[in-house]
């Protein structure tokens, strides 16, 4: 896998939005992903192709339908590469702190 492809794929807000939608509901069809997105099916298809090429999205066929799944492996590799196991506890503690503080503000 080419990490350039992963970063290029993640550099677009629509593609990140698609990943968010898959995280919320895995295994969606193109039609389901297009709902409430102000974009043509062709445009969404192109974005999904970029995400699939980067291995951030994978798909399985069910009959005539193609179901899309968020594939976290490339993001896991980014995490491993720059965070590493010694930093993990500290980063998790900071993330917890940030979450706690932000929830208080709401």
């Amino acid at each position, binding site marked *: 896998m080419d990490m350039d492809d992963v970063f290029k794929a993640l550099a677009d807000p629509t593609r990140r939005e698609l990943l968010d939608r898959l995280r919320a509901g*895995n*295994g969606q069809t193109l039609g389901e992903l297009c709902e409430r997105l102000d974009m043509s099916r062709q445009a969404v298809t192109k974005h999904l192709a970029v995400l699939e090429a980067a*291995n951030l999205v*994978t798909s*399985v066929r*069910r009959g005539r339908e193609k179901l899309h*799944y968020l*594939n976290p*492996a490339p993001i*896991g590799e980014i995490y491993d590469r720059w965070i590493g196991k010694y930093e993990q506890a500290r980063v998790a503690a900071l993330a917890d702190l940030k979450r706690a503080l932000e929830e208080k503000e709401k």
Partner: protein
Amino acid sequence: MTKPSLVYVNNIAAPPEKVWQALTDPEFTQRYWYGTRVESDWKVGSPITFVKGPGMGAPDTGRVLVADKPRTLAFSWHIAWGEMAKEKDSRVTFTIEPDGAGSKLTLVHDEFEEGSAAAESLKNGWPAILAGLKKALESQAP
């Protein structure tokens, strides 16, 4: 046909035979599967015992459904832990395809009960296990 709940794809810099070994050899699974030894003779219909690390509770059980070395491995899985033990068996299918000098490993986990707690828990579990598998294989001397 129900919708698969979990699908993961990992590219691994190791040939399919090595990936197969990593999935079926308890000495190897112990290295990345939270200390679990996955024990079976890997013949279709044979039982599988997921012997967990110390303090991790009773073994999970399963049965071999497909064993087409080194391409497809499928088994049923019954989780013995807590409330999940009440759920019916789910199905795990690993597909290994050659990809250049390495392999593309696809995991499809389906046939969960509606609203399965196991499916929810494995959303975090599988990516960690698969990342561990990849790391264990790629750090091996060729």
